[in-house]
């Protein structure tokens, strides 16, 4: 046996002649499944745009779409890990409702009596309480699933009922309002967006980060003499991603504040309202939260040991155990993470509504699961990406708000969303059989 790595002929099936498209995809290492999703999204957007007579692809609608998708997108990132390990979480909507209620009561009823109304730390206290409650609920579910061996389907089905009931119990069904002013920023709106300058800063920082990451990956592969992408492909990828980022910022920055709010803004400054006054929303804070969660979760899923174990367990639970992985503890941690993400979802949705109601998050579990599955998470385990799930959330939300824009009746909306889910998974099955 010798170190003949470099000289021996490669041990692989003969590659078939590639057409120009296939060669392009191979060089750029673009995920074709992801491209398919982007294609579907563009198609949906185009169709709604035409049907609504040009109302869909407007800064205003796209901005609202981004805000509406945030809460589901945040939770979908956790659902990916849950489903990858062949589990399911049916309780996220109810956890959202319960945690939202707890946070509402904390900031509107309990804490004002102690630290006074409008205290600057109010939002932090409420958010912290919410996170602790969310993670604890997840830990409880995870413990029962991993250590007591009750199937996740049953535990979280129970959770769905228990936490919905508990949400009602907190205030006997009474809606809690209003939320703390700072807390409310997490829900978007003219105040809950970072304005045009900061949006450009975020966009440019993101572009620089993308370029640094591409270069770093290349340098790493060079260090070990691994095969690399051709330079033009790297350049193309970098340009494409930066263009998308900056384009999104441009859209967010062309959605203006309503004139009434602009007037109040200048009045507060004690100035005349200039002619053609234009103040842009910029990127909404809930969207930033969702993006930050997406980046953090992608990091967790792909760059940490925990993430590696999640996927290994999904691929072959027995092998993971034999490799010495503490699969139970990993499972419990996944559900804790899911609980924490449901709490973040609750922050966004209570802030947006400026109230906590006991029906909040009803049926969210289904949207979250659908987003993850449409985003390419395989129910048979082991496969899924965070980015895909977030795109899935945007896709689901696009369908929903597009139909609202067209004035489609609610029952018909449900029918369309239901059909879309089944068709999407069917297409995915076909795709995996052919290429996957």
């Amino acid at each position: 046996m010798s170190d003949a790595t470099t000289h021996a002929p490669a041990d692989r099936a003969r590659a078939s002649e590639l057409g120009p498209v296939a060669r392009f995809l191979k060089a750029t290492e673009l995920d074709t499944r992801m491209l398919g999703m982007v294609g579907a999204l563009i198609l949906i957007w185009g169709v709604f745009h035409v049907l609504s007579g040009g109302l869909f692809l407007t800064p205003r609608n796209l901005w609202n779409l981004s805000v509406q998708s945030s809460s589901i997108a945040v939770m979908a990132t956790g659902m990916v890990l849950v489903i990858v390990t062949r589990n399911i979480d049916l309780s996220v909507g109810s956890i959202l409702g319960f945690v939202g209620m707890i946070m509402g009561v904390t900031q509107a009823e309990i804490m004002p009596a102690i630290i006074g109304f409008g205290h600057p730390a109010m939002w932090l206290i409420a958010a912290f309480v919410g996170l602790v409650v969310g993670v604890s609920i997840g830990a409880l579910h995870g413990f029962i699933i991993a250590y007591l061996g009750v199937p996740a389907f049953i535990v979280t089905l129970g959770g769905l009922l228990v936490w919905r009931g508990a949400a009602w119990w907190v205030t006997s069904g009474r809606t809690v309002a209003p939320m703390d002013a700072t807390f409310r920023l997490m829900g978007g709106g003219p105040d809950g967006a970072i304005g045009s300058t900061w949006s450009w800063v975020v966009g440019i920082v993101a572009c620089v980060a993308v370029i640094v990451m591409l270069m770093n990956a290349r340098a790493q592969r060079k260090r070990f003499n691994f095969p690399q992408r051709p330079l033009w492909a790297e350049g193309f990828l970098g340009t494409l991603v930066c263009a998308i980022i900056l384009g999104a910022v441009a859209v967010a920055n062309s959605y203006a504040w309503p004139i009434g709010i602009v007037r109040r803004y200048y009045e507060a400054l004690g100035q005349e309202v200039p002619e053609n006054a234009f103040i842009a929303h910029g990127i909404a804070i809930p969207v930033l939260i969702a993006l930050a969660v997406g980046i953090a979760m992608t990091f967790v899923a792909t760059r940490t040991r925990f993430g590696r174990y999640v996927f290994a367990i999904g691929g072959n639970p027995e092998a993971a155990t034999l490799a010495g992985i503490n699969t139970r503890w990993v499972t419990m941690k996944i559900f804790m993470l899911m609980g924490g993400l449901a709490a973040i979802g609750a922050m966004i949705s209570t802030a947006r509504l400026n109230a906590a109601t006991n029906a909040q998050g009803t049926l969210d579990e289904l949207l979250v699961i659908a987003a993850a599955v449409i985003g390419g998470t395989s129910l048979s385990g082991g496969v899924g990406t965070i980015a895909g799930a977030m795109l899935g959330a945007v896709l689901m939300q696009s369908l929903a708000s597009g139909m609202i824009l067209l004035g489609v009746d609610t029952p018909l909306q449900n029918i369309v969303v239901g059909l879309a889910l089944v068709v999407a998974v069917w297409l995915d099955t076909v795709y995996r059989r052919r290429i996957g």
Partner: protein
Amino acid sequence: MTHAAPLVEMRNISISFGGIHAVDDASIDLHEGEVVALLGHNGAGKSTLIKILSGAYKRDAGEIFVNGEEATINNPRDAKKYGIETIYQTLALADNVDAAANLFLGRELRTAWGTLDDVAMESETRKVMGRLNPRFQRFKEPVVKLSGGQRQSVAIARAIHFNARILIMDEPTAALGPQETAQVGELVKQLKDDGIGIFLISHDIHDVFDLADRVCVMKNGQVVGTARTEDVTKDEVLGMIILGKCPPGAIPGPGAMRDAA
């Protein structure tokens, strides 16, 4: 450490699944630089016995000694701490991740920031795989897409990469072609020269007779007998496997036919 203390000694091990005594009062030992072949029919209990050593199963009774000291092995992690590495019959690979991820599963290399160092892991994997299967190139693919032999190479690479002192190979060549099988034979000799003790499991005596220093035959969960390969012929070992008949050159175990005339 005296030379007399075996590297591993399993004493009076028993385990049953439901009503089946998969392993019944089995004792076996292994010395430094020694290859012990564990033989027996399908279902004889070979895999179950070594899975107790590797921490995959918890024994109902019996003790395990490593270097003469009693060892506590309750899970695979414990076994690895004693330097026990295993190539499982089922390979036990995580199908959806690549060769490097499998090689380092549970023992990932990490960067200074605590993140996974995938490039370093791939580099190491390329080195080990280069020794075992020089033509292997599909480092980026999930192992489920590899051929049976390639998967087996990955499982072998994982076992030998972490400086095992005790290596368990459960039918390591079942999916390999003749060339790769010969390579594994070479590898076994090389590891043996390094002082590693190896349990080599097979139900085919011809695979292992020339490599092994000793053979241990199991039947219906019991040890029929143990013998040095010089002291017995292949036919006698076949008799042990098929009939449970212990020849004069072997030390009989609890499973030896008692009413031998």
